[in-house]
């Protein structure tokens, strides 16, 4: 563990306490203790098979930890009801449905399900939240467009708008930028960062790319072989020693003029 962890985490909105996960005797996560503070954007980083997606799935209740606990707002995530949890925590899986035949507004309105349930009325309040979600991701005016006619970046933002319509206090996203080109990656990540800062949301993003994480996230948790190997603000992570620890590759770090975040590159 790199010591920078303690200073940045503070009292977390999402807390993992000694989380372990094993499938058929194979340990995928071991004793993971981490915090995800409110109003911050946190990256979960690591190479393939490091357990980062599994960790996010445990936080989203898609998998159950075999030991330890995942706590949202001080309560074990398992203690919430299905819809009660969805009202607090919104989760975007790596692969979404195509939402074919749905307009943007209809897709975003799906995010209100946790509030109105299967039979409840779709109130004007629901309508306002939907409109606000669409507005927040900058897709105003696209309401009646069919989702499959949107570009990749727009579609990703449409799904984020749906998460916003859920009106929770936490967003969990599994590699939301994996299928996007650089311009769209920047677009989506800046949006998430702004949401964390302006609305005080707890945003957790699983990512591959160290430089993108350093540029946009307040906090980076790095996993390797199912264990936490580094945790802290980007400046603490972006050192040759820590990067070697995470990636097993010799890397250098530079501070280009005019760029706030350091830049890592393979030697």
């Amino acid at each position, binding site marked *: 563990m790199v010591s920078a962890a303690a200073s940045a985490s503070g009292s977390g909105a999402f807390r993992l306490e000694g989380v372990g996960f094993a499938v058929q005797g194979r340990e995928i996560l071991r004793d993971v203790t981490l915090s995800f503070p409110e109003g911050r954007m946190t990256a979960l980083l690591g190479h393939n098979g490091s357990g980062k997606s599994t960790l996010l799935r445990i936080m989203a209740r898609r998998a159950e930890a075999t030991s330890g606990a995942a706590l949202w707002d001080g309560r074990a995530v398992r203690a919430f009801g299905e819809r009660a949890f969805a009202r607090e925590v919104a989760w975007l899986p790596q692969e979404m449905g195509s939402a074919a*035949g749905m307009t943007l507004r209809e897709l975003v309105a799906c995010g209100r399900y946790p509030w109105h349930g299967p039979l409840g009325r779709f109130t004007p309040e629901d309508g306002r939240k939907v409109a606000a979600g669409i507005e927040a991701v900058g897709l105003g005016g696209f309401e009646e467009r069919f989702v499959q006619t949107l570009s990749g970046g727009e579609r990703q933002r449409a799904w984020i708008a749906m998460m916003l319509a859920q009106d929770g206090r936490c967003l969990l996203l599994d590699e939301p930028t994996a299928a996007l080109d650089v311009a769209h990656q920047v677009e989506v990540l800046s949006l998430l960062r702004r949401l964390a800062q302006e609305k005080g949301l707890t945003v957790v993003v699983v990512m591959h790319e160290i430089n993108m994480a350093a540029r946009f996230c307040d906090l980076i948790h790095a996993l390797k072989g199912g264990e936490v190997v580094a945790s802290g603000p980007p400046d603490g992570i972006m050192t040759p020693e820590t990067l070697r620890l995470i990636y097993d590759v010799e890397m250098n770090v530079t501070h280009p003029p005019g760029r706030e975040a350091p830049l890592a590159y393979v030697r």
Partner: protein
Amino acid sequence: MSGLRVLPAIVILCGIAAASALLWMLIAPGLLAPEVPGYDAARMRLVHSTLPRLATALIAGFALSLAGALLQQVLRNPLASPTTLGVSAGAHLALAGAMLFFPALLGLGRDAVALLGAGLAAALVMALGARRGFSPLTLVLSGLVIGLWCGALAAALVYLNDRRMVSLFIWGAGSLATQSWEAPLALLWKTGLLTLACGFLLRPLTLLELGDEEASALGLKLARTRFLALALAVGLSALVTSAVGVIGFIGLVAPILARLLGARRIPAFLLASGLIGAALLLTTDALLQLIAGIFSDLLPTGAVTAVFGSPLLLLLLPRLKIRREPFALASFAPRRRGDLGPGFALVAAALAGLVVLALFLGRDSGGGWSFDAQMLSLRAPRVFTALAAGAMLAVSGLLLQRLTGNEMASPEVLGVSSGATLGLALGVFLVATPGFAAQLGFAGMGAFAVLAAILISTRRSALAPERVLLVGIALSALVDALVGLMAATGDPRALTILRWMSGSTYGAEAGSAALLCAGALILILPALLARRWLDLLPLGPETASALGIPVRAARLRLFALAGALSAAATLGVGPLSFVGLMAPHLARELGFSRAASQTAGAALIGALLMVAADWIGRTAVFPWQIPAGLVAALTGAPFLILLLFRRGRT
């Protein structure tokens, strides 16, 4: 063949020993009987009946298994076979149709007709598969669906035309009985030629193993190789079907056994599949002859192999790696949206008009058209039975399509209708003349037995829709085979089952019609209430559960609802109709794309289609009647093809 594995080899050896013993028991009476000068009955039977039959079994088994091996190899699909891709059933339907409507065609060439049917079925399945990148699941799904429909239609055609055609039904179920050497010899040289032709494909097929990119980089013409291999497989299946009818599942099982035995290289794999298939069919037939004795002429071997083969399909399903398919009704092009009010008003008005028409307009005893209210008490139960059943089928189809994200899903596919048929068949055989209440009970029991089997066997996969569909189809193949066996016994009671299968509303009475209408109202209401689930589930199980839907429980309830709906509808109009497939599509075409409006629209359209089918069946060829289910199915097949062409363009 290299790399024989020990255990499978031992099992095969034991099999061969058992088969030899069986064969000896079959042949011995003829061989060992003391020679009688002049008319020697025992020897005559041996030479002209028993031996040709065994030869036929050998050749048919070899050809079908070779076809199955070719299909599995070229489609890279462990579940491909003439049965699972609907090829045999297509040939069967073509032959049955030709025999009934254009007997002259058969004079021109029975094999040509079979080939045409098999080719069409294969082309249809491939067209469906091509739109999803030939994913194994989609291919098998479309193939089995088309196979089931072809089989059901052929059965209905037989019933419709003449009850004395039951022998055609027996042939259709795959009977190997023969009285001369003519049939096996003709089959031998034809399939022999095609088998030799396979020789040219050995190397290209080996190259295909490397993957498409690499194979074409080595100079292989992919499309041509695939087409040739498919054509040979279709040809082999068509020839066998033309000679002995549909023999289920041999072509699936033998190649799988060959693989288990360690046949790795292509030549070894093809040869081993053929030989194993020949041995399997021979053994099955010998066993059947010994057990059934003189009735073996009536117990079609093909139906027996299906009864044993379809459970095997169930066992093999877990081996099929199901690639996560884009979980959505992907190919639906967006429709313009507007105010849905006029659309609803139009459909509702059309339905109301049609009901009035069907109630009052008919043919009088002289064949002229008459508009009167005298027949009301006779017509009303039929019209309302058709109406309720159509609406329920439509909603059931909609539920299944939305649950599975597959546009080919429909109540027939789930096997629930077949379950109801089996229940009724049992009822007819156990109780001489069951009344409506008893019929309801038996059919309901059958339907829910199938539903329970599906739910139990897919519990571990959290009711993943792909599995549910495949298990449903495998079960309905099993049930169809069982019903085929019962119907083929030549028992007059079989006709009751055939009538039911062809989907007639003749039996409708006021009481049962009222019951069905009430059932429709009670069962369609929950579907409307579940509209939010139906909107969200197509977004994928991950997203749906992230939004707080208890996915597993929701699926369970909706599947149960779909099952109840189709069971109730099957009681009214039999297991065969395309209404459950057509109505949701038509509703969508009219712009009803959200779950609630699509449900309501589909229910109205389904009712409309069924009432229309019933009315047409009643009046078109007066004084004869065509069962409503059959009319709907006859129009449904072109609809399916039309749908494909429309999608192909976008």
